[in-house]
């Protein structure tokens, strides 16, 4: 069990965004958080990444509690994320965006960079090489020096994923990675995620709407509606579940 | 020091605190709706004072008429500033707005220096303002009563507008979330203009009162006062009108009382507001009224 979400409740003032929700993700699983808009999925992400503190409950990563730890430290522990509305660094190239992910791993100091001491060169070379490897897997290495926002939407998504992978996470949180893609692209993306899961030895937790995509990709899912769990289990069972079908008003017909 | 002198200082403190409060309200309201520190706001106070000087010393109008005209023109100036300089930058990165604000502030200060000269001009304080009466040893001037009284009335007026009128509700909604307000069919820009107008009007009143209490008017007079007023707004809780007033009084009182007890600190008087600011940022960044502006409130 790499991630345990234990009885999380989150209230914003008078509004309960998430109510007593629990699930756990096993190592190398691909786990889906699904549900209608506003169901609390992104809020759950934000709690895992440390942006919000849960009103009640705990989050455990590798058995240790991470709720209440500062977001940037949680990244160092091995959790990285992408955003629903792609948030790349607008002024920087694709390479520089990905290099940001390596920030923690590059071991040279401030003074070493000012005086251009050997360790600076060694580390920069190492992380750039690694960055290109990651970009290669995602098929965007050719765009390394381009301005990140000049790429197409689909390619920008990949840059975001590359950037998150650069942080060397054990758990990758993807917020609607297939948004805005056509069926061909989502098929490709699913294959890509399988590859990433295997090549990088990584666990994936994702939020998604596209049920076909989820069905193809995920091992297990948690279905949320208005902050409450209406199903947790294998994807095969999810699509047969009455409550789930009701919540999705027959979206599963297309799955 | 005896109780009488202390009481005297309290009276002075009330006066000074009121003026800081009036200017602080404008800062806090603009920050509330735009998340912008309007550096030019302190200079509006100066403009108000200069308008007062012009109308009274040059055109020899009466004080009440002067106040009315100065306030109206200053309000218009504030709205004009928003319209030509801040509104076009609504979608721009915040730093552009801040730089523009500094630019406007600097422009106002220097424009007035060029056209009115840097030498301070004596403000013609109306006689009735200077009348004093003695209440068991404590000296009150009409001004020292009028200023806090008017401030209180204006504060209540602003609170009434904010909590009991449609426009006020829109202003408060705007400080929560600018996008929602647009979706609700209220024109956010009109509301923002209103905020600038109100804030500038209050700053002008503050400037006029300042001129009455310290009867000299010069182009740089708004600089330090503005800085302290913003510190007051932060101390009281940025985004909260009541907080701004509280902060204003705290700083005003501290300045007066500390100098009264320790006159040798005189040269450091202007540093107190800054010290308060740092302390608040260190220990309670949301200020006294304590609203986290991610869920903003007035």
């Amino acid at each position, binding site marked *: 069990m790499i991630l345990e979400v234990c009885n999380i409740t989150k209230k914003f003032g008078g509004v309960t965004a998430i109510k007593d929700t629990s699930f756990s993700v096993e190592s190398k699983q691909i786990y889906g958080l699904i549900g209608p808009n506003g169901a609390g999925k992104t809020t759950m992400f934000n709690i895992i990444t440390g942006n919000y503190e849960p009103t009640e409950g705990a989050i455990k990563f590798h058995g240790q509690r991470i709720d209440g730890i500062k977001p940037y430290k949680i*990244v160092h522990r091995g959790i990285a994320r992408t955003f629903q509305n792609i948030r790349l660094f607008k002024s920087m190239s694709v390479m520089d965006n990905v290099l940001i992910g390596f*920030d923690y791993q590059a071991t040279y100091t401030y003074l070493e960079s000012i005086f251009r001491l050997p360790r600076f060169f060694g580390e*920069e070379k190492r992380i750039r090489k690694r960055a290109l490897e990651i970009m290669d897997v995602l098929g965007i290495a050719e765009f390394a020096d381009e301005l990140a926002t000049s790429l197409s939407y689909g390619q920008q998504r990949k840059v975001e994923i590359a950037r998150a992978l650069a942080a060397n996470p054990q758990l990758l949180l993807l917020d609607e990675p297939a948004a805005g893609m056509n069926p061909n692209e989502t098929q490709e993306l699913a294959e890509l995620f399988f590859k990433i899961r295997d090549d990088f030895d990584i666990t994936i937790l994702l939020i998604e709407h596209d049920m076909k995509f989820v069905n193809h990709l995920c091992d297990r899912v948690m279905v949320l509606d208005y902050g409450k769990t209406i199903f947790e289990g294998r994807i095969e069972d999810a699509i047969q579940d009455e409550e789930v079908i009701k919540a999705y008003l027959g979206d599963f017909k297309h799955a | 020091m005896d109780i009488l002198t202390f009481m005297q200082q309290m009276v002075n403190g009330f006066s000074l605190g009121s003026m800081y409060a009036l200017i602080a309200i404008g800062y806090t309201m603009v920050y509330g709706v735009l998340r912008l520190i309007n550096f030019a706001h302190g200079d509006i106070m100066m403009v108000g004072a200069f308008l007062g000087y012009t109308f009274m010393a040059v055109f020899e109008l009466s004080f009440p008429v002067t106040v009315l005209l100065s306030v109206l023109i200053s309000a218009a100036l504030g709205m004009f500033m928003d319209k030509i300089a801040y509104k076009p*930058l609504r979608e721009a990165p915040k730093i552009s707005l801040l730089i523009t604000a500094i630019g*406007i502030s600097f422009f106002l200060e220097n424009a007035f220096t060029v056209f009115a000269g840097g030498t301070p001009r004596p403000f013609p304080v109306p006689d009735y303002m200077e009348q004093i009466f003695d209440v068991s040893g404590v000296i009150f001037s009409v001004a020292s009563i009028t200023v806090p009284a008017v401030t209180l009335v204006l504060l209540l007026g602003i609170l009434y507008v904010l909590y009991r009128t449609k426009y006020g509700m829109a202003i408060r909604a705007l400080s929560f979330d600018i996008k929602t307000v647009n979706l609700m069919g209220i024109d956010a820009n009109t509301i923002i203009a209103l905020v600038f107008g109100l804030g500038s009007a209050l700053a002008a009143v503050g400037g006029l009162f300042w001129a009455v209490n310290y009867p000299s008017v010069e182009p740089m007079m708004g600089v330090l006062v503005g800085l302290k007023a913003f510190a007051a707004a932060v101390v009281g809780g940025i985004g909260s009108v009541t907080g701004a007033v509280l902060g204003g009084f705290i700083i005003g009182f501290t300045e007066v009382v500390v100098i009264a007890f320790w006159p040798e600190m005189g040269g450091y008087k202007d*540093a107190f507001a800054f010290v308060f600011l740092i302390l608040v940022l260190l220990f309670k960044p949301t200020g006294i009224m304590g609203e986290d502006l991610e869920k903003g409130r007035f």
Partner: protein
Amino acid sequence: MNNTVFTKDRLINLAIIITTIWFLWFAQHFFDEYTIRIINNVAIFIILAVSYNLINGITGQFSLEPNGFIAIGAYVTAILTVDSEAMLYQYDIEDPYPWVLALQSNFGWALFFSGTISALLALSLAFPVFRVRGDYLAIVTLGFGFIIRILAINSPEITNGSLGINDIPEFSNLYWTGGLAICTVLAVLNIIYSKFGRAMKAVRDDEDAATAMGINTFKIKTMAFTTSAFFEGIGGGLLAALLTSISPDLFTFFLTFQLLIIIVLGGLGSTTGAILGTIFVMAGLEYMRFLDEPINLFGFETEAMPGMRMVVFSLILIFVMLFAREGLMGKRELKDLFKKKKVNK
């Protein structure tokens, strides 16, 4: 050509540096005093602008700190380089404290202390400000500048109050100013082209995303701010040794405003822009001096209007913000102009 040490980029940089050093030597020997003074001034302002750009332009944190730290640097250098006799003679308001008299050092160390003390002060300011949402940096630094002036005026035993410190040994020559300018530019560029510079830009572009990528944004902002202060302190020291006479009135907000205009016009976020902006603005201020004097317009002579220059400059600033926000270079550096498609604007 697989040369990893002598790359084309580095050779070009080396050539630029050597040319500049040669130019400094040439100017120091052959130019007249007035021109040398201007070049000294420009060099110092390049140091100031390039470092101010680090916190404002690269890290995107709006700060108004320069006049405060420049003042500190200037006073530290002045106190350290003016000898005790001269101090006792000058300090007219009060006698200087014994420790003030005792503090003596050579120019190099004086500059070092100027920079370091500024940096330490910046560190202590950074803590309360960046811990919070950082919006208050501008106001706190604005206030800080005021406080420094107040302290300078009210501590005559240390600073000789409003009279200021005079007869500072004129150590600043083109080698010091130009040399340190080169060092500052190199240091800042090295920072920018490293993981720290990338992190600073990330904080500027999207602070929340930067945090989500594991960047300690508080630390990065503090590093940028402290570094800016360090070089501003050194610039202040050089200024003191150039002007040979400093007083609290030298370090008003106007100084910060000048630097702000410089980096905005040059392009917020571009070091090359800061350098170009310095030359442009310094030349412009000189050129516009006529605005402060009586002007002869078609036979009408207007009165002298001190402050008109600044009115024009503030209008230029507002204009640039509204219509040409990127300034001259935007966020690009000189070498980016030579890359064809791969623009970093």
